[in-house]
């Protein structure tokens, strides 16, 4: 098998093309550490973002992310290429989050959403050190808006929230969402319609309140 140059580990790499993806999967199945480092570089931020918005409690997101990549590592040999690698990864991530919520659901249900996330402090520090171009006011305004949307999102029932997050935040197509969740495209559309409607109402209430 020809060696594939998966040397980079930088974050936010773009997903590999389908031809490269087959080579990447082959390397992953062979247990190449460099291939896994590349996979982490490409997918750790998108998957973390998905988990963060789906799980409801951001403090749980790192542990869930670790479990997800552990399952990906252990299950990569079962990946048969029927879907894209991205869809397969997201399916594992969504299932892991749902399992996690099921086991911790009762506790999470009563916990309020916290806006004191680490990223906000880092961004404000970035402003103070001159790294961020925005003003501190804009950063806090954005954080407030994000917190409001997150609160509304967290209050949605899980099926609607999952579809909305996958569509609006992760920018997956209807077909990809259907593959990730194992449901029909029609169901995706109806859940998305209902989720958006609920979200619109909740945000309107927040704005008026």
């Amino acid at each position: 098998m020809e060696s594939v140059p998966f040397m980079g580990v930088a974050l936010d790499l773009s997903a590999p093309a389908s031809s490269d993806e087959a080579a990447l999967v082959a390397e992953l199945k062979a247990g190449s550490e460099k291939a896994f480092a590349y996979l982490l570089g490409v997918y750790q931020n998108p998957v973390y973002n998905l988990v963060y918005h789906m799980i409801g409690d951001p403090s749980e997101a790192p542990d869930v992310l670790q479990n997800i990549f552990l399952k990906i590592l252990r299950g990569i040999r079962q990946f048969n290429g029927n879907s894209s690698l991205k869809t397969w990864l997201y399916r594992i991530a969504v299932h892991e989050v749902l399992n996690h919520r099921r086991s911790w659901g009762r506790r999470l249900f009563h916990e309020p959403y916290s806006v004191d996330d680490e990223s906000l402090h880092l961004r404000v520090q970035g402003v103070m050190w001159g790294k961020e171009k925005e003003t501190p006011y804009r950063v806090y305004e954005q954080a407030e808006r994000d917190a409001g949307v997150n609160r509304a999102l967290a209050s949605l029932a899980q099926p609607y929230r999952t579809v909305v997050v996958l569509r609006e935040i992760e920018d997956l197509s209807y077909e990809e969402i259907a593959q990730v969740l194992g449901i029909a495209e029609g169901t995706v559309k109806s859940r998305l319609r209902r989720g958006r409607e609920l979200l619109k109402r909740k945000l309107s209430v927040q704005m008026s309140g």
Partner: protein
Amino acid sequence: MIFESCAEIRSYFSDYVDGACDARTVRSIRYHLSDCKSCNKDLERYRAVQLDLRGMARQQVSPNLALRLRVQVSQELHRNVAQRLMIRLENIFHPVLLPSVAGFLVALVCFGLVLGMGTPRTNNIPDVPLDLVTPPTIMELAPMNFDMGGGPLVLVTYVNARGEVTSYKVLSGPHSPKFMESLDRMMYFSLFHPATTFGVPTSGRLVLSFRRITVRG
């Protein structure tokens, strides 16, 4: 497609903002929107929600979490005991490998420089042998030019404190007058280190053995 009510058209807004409606539905929605402020407002709210969702700051994995993930993946990939042992050994030796190799090379270069700096010094101090008694030794033998008759020649030589032969006695070998004359001459011109007693030169005896050696060439 003709919509009967605003409620009906609004059920298509979700697909409409995603661009998932067919051309006929899109035309009908646009026709309706051109004349319905309420639906226009509702669609604006849809779009605002979409913008709010898409405008949210994307969460990034912290460097600490990224490192934890890398370590976890590495540990999972090297669960085999032998591999883990090799990695542990590599981790132990890798940091000292470069300094130790560099140290060895520097030592080698220094050793070579020291060796190449010249001939080793010889001890010119005429030390007195500290043995209690030392026998006389040959300093230089005069050339021999006589026929021993094929057999060995063994003789006892008496050397005085100045290293001169005072007498000698042939133990085995020829005794002819001509041979003895040649032997006298050789002994007269030979030089010896005298025997010593506590470092002081003194007279002593030395047994010499000669044998004819033929070298072919």
